[in-house]
């Protein structure tokens, strides 16, 4: 079974009018889910895993990305 992986990272409008990052994840069991991250969390994970842009998150192991939160 492969690790959970980021399938997509899109910018969306959050409830409070801030932009947020909607991350689509395929989990180990094959299920695909989405998680919305606020700007602080999203910038933190991008910095933590060396992603220069949100597109750089795609293909990365989700558990690696999560370490930045």
């Amino acid at each position, binding site marked *: 079974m492969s690790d959970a992986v980021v399938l997509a*990272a899109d910018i*969306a*409008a*959050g*409830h409070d009018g801030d*932009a947020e990052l909607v991350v689509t994840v395929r989990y180990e069991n094959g299920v695909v889910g989405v998680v919305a991250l606020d*700007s602080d969390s999203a910038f933190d994970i*991008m910095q933590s895993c060396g992603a220069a*842009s949100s597109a750089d998150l795609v293909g990365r192991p989700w558990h690696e990305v999560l370490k930045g939160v």
Partner: protein
Amino acid sequence: MFDILIKNGMVIDGVGSKAVLSDVGIKDGKILAIGENLKDGGRQVLDAAGLVVSPGFIDPHTHFDAQLLWDGAAKPALEHGVTSIIPGNCSLSLAPLKAEDRKTLIGMFQQIEELPPAAFTDAFEWTWETFSGYRAAIEGTLSVNVAPLVGHSVIRLWVMGADAQQRAARPEEISAMQDLLRECLNAGAVGLSTSFVDVDENARPVPSRFAQFQELDALCAVLGEFGRMLQIVPEFYDTDITIARIDQLAELSLKHKIPTTLSPVFDNRQSPNNVPRTLARIDEQMARGARVWPQMQTRPIDISFSLLRPSLFFARLPSWVKILRLPVTERISALRDPVTADKLVADAGEDGGERLMGRLIVRGGGEAPEHLVGRTLGDIAAERGEVPARALITLSLENDLEIAFLAANGGHDSTDRIGPMLANPLVHIGASDGGAHLTSFSTYGDTGYLFSEFVRKSGALTLEHAVQKITSEPAEIWGLKDRGILKTGYAADVVIFDPLTIDRGIERPVFDMPGGGMRYVRDSIGVDTVVVNGQIAWAKGAYTNAQTGQICELA
């Protein structure tokens, strides 16, 4: 003789019946008669020919708790036809609250609802600690009806003090919270609100988030004694967790025989399965007999930002991300550097950022020059002989980064998708957040938008259905006695509006908050007259002196 006789209107009763040409007679704050050609006459006669006469609208998710202390009309909500509001959502209310905890609560309100500090220090005197004391402080000067929730976070603060934001409650503390909640419900609270999401001004979870399930269960047992509402803010950023919360709410609803509601629930194209999955679970739990009402707003969500604070709007542009994450002084220096600015512009695309930034709108309310407000960046850039990305940088620098831009309709914006969701009998139209997010966007006019976008434009709802969704349905869900229907004996909360024009106005900044604080508002369009408990509270574009709003009696 009636106090008010409304003649020749298309009467929509609020329960879904087809509109009928009829008169409405009002006396002593109640609907006294509805029928053709009422003969008794009236001290005031309103000709509603060509207009709809409907029950007053009910807004079930607001944060007007503080504003009601200096503005009993909850302006501009009332002029949009809203005659009853429910404040105290998201675990936060202004009572019960000990004097020593006021500063703590003010911080939370400022963080979550963007209320300016002066709203709590200059605009009113804190004359109360108890819930009944708060009720007494607002009663008598209300122009709208109010059904206040009591916040779980303040109940915790009262019982546990600073520990409320540090740990789970002990059995004796839970028991004390139960007693306090019971006291609030006896004083007229419509229910309890809690949050699993919000943080205070120091990014610490609000007190309600430290509660273990047994605490919430115990409080719901008290709600069950009264049959009152539990409102929650679920982890709406994750559909799976939201569904888990729906299951939890269903268990609490069934066990304690209480209604529950969650807000917000909203749609966007980046997570298109969110609402369908949420509603599917609601459907299953409702079929079991649980009462779990998801609240959905009508208005689209706009993205707003300035270069003063890093925004994910730029998350696809590596060079922008790098610069915007610098400390402010270094950020300004970098933006002033011609080489860096050239690179930013180049990275915005071969079109100079036209596609990504050209439709951004300059917002008012900050330092933006008046002549630029409301115009698109593309338009301004063309006038300045710049490309949009360059104009965004130079405009920001010219205004010390205190200029805000708006990307309209960034989410919850697909009318074709949202119309059927709003029409769904499981969906509770609400989540306006009226009175909150003051400096981010306008939380007023969602009802007008319901009619303009989803009745007239898309036809997702009939006029009668739309009225029902914001009148009798919320009244029934929340247990507001004798409201939400145009019926003999019911409260005379009435809106007279033009079905062909009712809408929300453009968003505009005003500086009418205590201390000159700014907020965004929208004026009403097409609302002719608003009657609250039998007296005209707003008519022909102006507020009256009527203060006939009440604390709602509960069924």
